[in-house]
């Protein structure tokens, strides 16, 4: 069964790279990109929109960062935890970010960039 994946990140180069990596796993049928949390939220807060199986979320974004996005989404769609799997993917190696990620039940994991094909495949396996 083919799945859908969504990447929320303002780094255009990263977007290109992750697209290649996702394609290599050959596990996803659709890939959706958002440049900022605010754009992703605009779509996802609509309860008619079906959430992708996996979301890779960046923390540092100009308008709405990863945390703000998560908080807003919880507000608009309290049960979204059952509809999708969210991973934080960030270039930050700050411990504070990792700890904050752990405090969210909705977050399944914290990945430091760069993300490899193996890493992604491992995640897919975990949630099969």
């Amino acid at each position, binding site marked *: 069964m083919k799945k859908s994946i969504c990447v929320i990140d303002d*780094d255009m*180069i990263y977007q290109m*790279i992750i697209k290649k990596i996702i394609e290599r796993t050959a596990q996803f049928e659709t890939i959706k990109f958002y440049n900022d949390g605010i754009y992703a939220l605009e779509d996802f807060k609509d309860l008619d929109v079906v959430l992708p199986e996996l979301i890779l979320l960046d923390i*540092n974004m100009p308008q709405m960062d990863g945390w703000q996005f998560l908080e807003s989404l919880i507000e608009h769609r309290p049960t979204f935890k059952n509809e999708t799997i969210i991973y934080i993917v960030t*270039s930050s190696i*700050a411990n504070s970010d990792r700890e904050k990620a752990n405090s969210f039940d909705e977050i399944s994991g914290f990945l*430091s960039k*760069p*993300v490899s*094909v193996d890493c992604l495949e491992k995640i897919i396996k975990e949630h099969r």
Partner: protein
Amino acid sequence: MSRNKGSFSFKSNFLSRPILAGVFSFVFLFLLGFFLLFQSYQIIRESEAREMINVMDLVEKNLNNSLKDSYSVALSMGLIIDDEGNIRDFEQYAPLLLEQYPVIDVVQMVPGGVIRKVYPYQANKAVIGYDILKDPKTRKEALKAIDVGKMYFAGPFDLLQGGTAVVGRLPVFKNNKFWGFSAVIIKLESLLEQAELNKLAGEKYIFQFSKINPESNEEQFFLQNDLDIEYNISETILLPDGDWKFYIALKNPKEAFYELIPMAFFILLIASWLGWVVTLLFKQPIRLQALVNSQAGELAASELKFRTIFNQAAVGMVRVETATGKFLETNQRFRELSGYSASELNGMNFREISHPSEINENLALIQQLLNGDIREYSLEKRLIQKSGNVLWVKLSVSPLWKKDTSGSTHIAIIEDISERVVAQNELMKNEKRYRALVENGGEVVTIFNRKGQAIYSSPAIQKIAGYSEAEINSVNLSSLIHPKDIAELDKQILEAMKFPSKPISGFTIRAKNKKGEWRWAESTITNLLEDSSVKGFVGNFRDVSEKKEAEINLNKSYQMVMEQNRRLLNFSYIVSHNLRSHSSNIQAILNLYNTTSVEEEKLNYIGLLSKVGNALNHTLEDLNEVVSISTNLDLNIESLQINAFLNKTIDLLEMQISDKGAIIKRDVPDEMIVKFNAAYLESVLLNFRTNAIRYREQKRKLEISILGYKENGDWILEIADNGVGIDLERHGGKIFGLYKTFTQTPNSRGVGLFITRNQIEAMGGSVAVESEVGVGSVFKIYFK
């Protein structure tokens, strides 16, 4: 006493029995009074009797006049009888006679006892022909007249013709032969009127008029009144012409008696009063005697008391011969104090046991006492005990002679005050010590009133602040306090007001010293307004300027270090994040590159890699800029006029401003000059205004207002716009962060505000923002 008793028995009897004396006096006076009263009563009685006799004399005289008149008329009538016994010219003479003697009412001629002629005729004609010698009622009296041979009055009786009257009948003889009667009738009323009885009776007397009835031989009374002959009788006269009896009596015989009753009461009163006075008078010696006895007793008792007090007193007491200073008497306590026995002290002079230092003063006081200049004195002096030890005593001296008489002896009271003197000396030492502490300490102590006026300042103020006490007392203390610390001081004073006598401490304020320098004073204020010895606030001020300045510098350094640290942390985060994003991208690309064999794809990755390189370069440039701001510590800082720089930036942005039709309002004073780096100031002003233009609200005309003013002594520049605004709730913490943007406006990179803030902070200032989405933003730059 008992020997003399007999000879003084009467006197002492009365002296000891004042009531008896009083009664005796009363009875004596009462009897005397009544005796005098009785005498005067008798005198009144006698004078009344005399008066009555006089009255009766008058009555008698008047009646006799009437009777004489009757006799004259009757005689005259007899003359009109001629020798033949005929009555001639009766009608002619009768009226003449009646006219002459008005007392006579009727005249009659009665020849042979038969009434033949009467005048006035008309009223009396009924009697004509009446034979008086035949009628038994009249016969007896008529015969009596013949018998006595002269005029005799019959009646009073009721007349035939009416009325009561007396009839005087004169027997007329012709040729020695009884002819008949010539009669006159006097009405009883006329008779009494003639006697002036009514006039004489007045209010005082009553009369009675009686005759022995010739037929019944009973006394017949003719006047209607209640005169009781038996009781009231006083005076009588007898008139033989008619055998009449006149009585006079007092109408109110008891009047004189009644008149004396008030007098009797008065006598009773006087006698009683005098009796009482005598009682009191006789009592006086007894009372005086009792007083003398009781006072003698008291004197003895007080003598005893004095002895007891003298001997048993807890203070030393001595009686001293004033002139010589010799002890006459000493009490137990004094002997204890001095250590000498009674016999040793006997004849000793007070000088022998006095400390030489006070002897002269003591002698001078004794002299004043002897001169009468003072009536007492007290002195604190030293007493030399027998053992040679010195004892501090308080001496109180009172003379035992009366004022203005020459001095003899005096009483001295000696109290042991050694403990008090020692305590006092200790207290004085302490006082000196505290004074030294206050005056020489490193602390200024002032007492000031509610208005902030110093009442007292410790001399340390001269040393510490340079003011003399007079100078500090002449100014209001608040004028010496730093304006920024006045509020703090007021707060503490308010606290002190709330808690009287509680020291309010632990605050530090700046005060101006005489040189005009601000010095930090660690202060304690105690509200002792209610304390009567202070009546003010006590302020303790310690100059802690060095400490405080060190503290401030330390604090500043700490703040600076913290700020540096914060910025470094922020920077390291930025560095790690922004550089790592590129490095991770490179890593990922290389990874992809290595794991592909497709040549075309490999070329693709190389292209991607060069893009990462560009981005990295950009990032490094940004970081470099930030680093240069944060680390460039020796930038050229000048005094710059804000208006000049605003003009410059407006010129730079002229195109954009006129393009968008923006309105720029400016209210910045020319004297607004700040210390800043010129390049930074230009960059800051440009950035805020570029932002204002970039993030304008498309729907309305852009308005930028720039306001410059001073707050708490520092310049503030306010740049307000009516642009899109920023959701501060969402972005507040990151608004000045690197790579943070808040709108979907293209070209916004999130670098400008970050740089601006860093530039302002590098110049020691700060920046704040107020904003509302859809309304606009206000940025405030606080210059140092």
